């Protein structure tokens, strides 16, 4: 495919995602406002009102109903979108599992935010990470550009005939949703050819079937097993779609993980989401001083890229994994996944937990932790309090 230079715009994260949604042309939207996602809903309503997006915006009374209504629309053959955050995502949880188990192609954007109690509207990944077993593909953006790119790719991935799974696109609340950045947006015609109208439907109206049926144990476990296989299959599909997007946008998409100066690195920091940018700065500063450090950014969290993580990290002298979410009684969530990837390899893995409830994390924090790691002075788990 031919690379056509996109248009450069200055957009806040929410508007960039709304723009991507407009270009993807969903037919049904149901979004319930919640901080920090609200401005995205406002923008989408504006698009619908002005007729730029020919979609039905269903006004719902809750996040649960939002997902329930687009679930129905998606089963009936429409392309659908919703967005939420934090408590809204928790309220949506019951329907998340229905959509995942039923394998309905849905795209949801999650403007990640802390969970109550105590109340906080600021950014961390607890809401997003808590949904890791809902049979949803989960991807996370580092910056506004990536949030735009992943939203467009999400529609393709979710509707791919070998996948047929809902996709959740996470991007950090306020840090990305309300920050204006330079974004290269694709031309509408390019997006149109990248995401053609949906070719298949879950139900055939001439041959009625029951959706969301009751399943006896032997069917239930088989259906779950197929969902597991679909998740595994989706890895290849996601990589293919990323590569295809690279060709039309001219921007590198890296795959399931992005390796930044990590190929020859002895010490690697692993992160996900917006603070990968801070980690990048820390890595650059240490490289300038001759330290062999690198960054491995996880872009796709479910399905988790075990092979890629293992390939990049197995020869390291030390790994530092940054977690913006915590599994209480267990440990950082990302660090546990990394440890599983490295099972059988003798690589010390350290955990850095921080940024909960919007606590500011700067490149210096990461730099200090990396320096301590290299000196052998880093504890197994450090909290940035």
């Amino acid at each position: 495919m031919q690379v056509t230079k996109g248009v450069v715009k200055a957009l806040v994260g929410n508007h960039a995602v709304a723009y991507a949604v407009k270009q993807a042309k969903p037919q049904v939207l149901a979004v319930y406002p919640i901080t920090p996602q609200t401005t995205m809903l406002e923008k989408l309503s504006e698009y619908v009102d002005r007729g730029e997006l020919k979609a039905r915006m269903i006004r719902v009374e809750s996040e649960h109903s939002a997902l329930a209504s687009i679930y129905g629309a998606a089963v009936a053959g429409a392309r659908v979108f919703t967005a939420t955050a934090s408590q809204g995502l928790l309220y949506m949880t019951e329907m998340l599992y229905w959509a995942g188990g039923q394998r309905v192609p849905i795209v949801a954007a999650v403007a990640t935010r802390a969970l109550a109690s105590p109340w906080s509207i600021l950014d961390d990944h607890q809401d997003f990470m808590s949904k890791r077993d809902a049979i949803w593909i989960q991807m996370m953006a580092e910056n506004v550009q990536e949030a735009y790119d992943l939203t467009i790719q999400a529609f393709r991935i979710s509707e791919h005939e070998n996948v047929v799974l809902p996709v959740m696109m996470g991007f950090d609340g306020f840090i990305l949703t309300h920050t204006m950045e330079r974004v290269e947006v694709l031309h509408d015609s390019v997006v149109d050819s990248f995401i053609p109208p949906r070719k298949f439907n879950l139900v055939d109206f001439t041959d009625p079937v029951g959706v969301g049926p009751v399943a006896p144990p032997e069917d239930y476990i088989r259906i779950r097993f197929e969902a597991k296989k679909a998740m595994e299959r989706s890895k290849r599909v996601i990589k293919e779609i990323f590569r295809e997007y690279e060709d039309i946008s001219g921007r590198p998409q890296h795959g399931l993980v992005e390796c930044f100066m990590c190929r020859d690195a002895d010490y690697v920091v692993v992160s996900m989401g917006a603070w990968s940018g801070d980690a990048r700065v820390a890595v650059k500063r240490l490289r300038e001083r001759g330290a062999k450090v690198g960054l491995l950014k996880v872009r796709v969290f479910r399905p988790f890229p075990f092979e890629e993580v293992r390939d990049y990290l197995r020869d390291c002298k030390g790994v530092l994994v940054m977690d913006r979410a915590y599994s209480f009684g267990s440990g950082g969530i990302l660090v546990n996944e990394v440890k599983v990837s490295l099972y059988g390899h003798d690589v010390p893995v350290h955990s850095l937990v921080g940024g909960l409830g919007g606590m500011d994390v700067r490149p210096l924090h990461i730099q200090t932790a990396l320096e301590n790691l290299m000196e052998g002075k880093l504890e197994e788990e450090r909290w940035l309090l």
Partner: protein
Amino acid sequence: MINLPPGVPLARPSLGSSGQTGTWRVLRPVIHYNKCTKCRLCFFYCVENTIDLELNMFPKIDYQYCKGCGVCAQVCPTAAIEMMREVK
């Protein structure tokens, strides 16, 4: 037809596949058609959707699935539906 990947849970309901609930019945609703005014209240109220309308708009009960709950008899404004003891 759709070419779906395996593992999408869909059911193909057929007669009796979800249980012949008609066997649960203790009382059997019987419509006295001479009193029926075709108001269709029983049709709208039937919780199990077992009352169908015939071409002449008279209601007809599907005894294969009717559980005999008696809602139709309660809502009938002309008391045209009588709950009679089921005789096996």
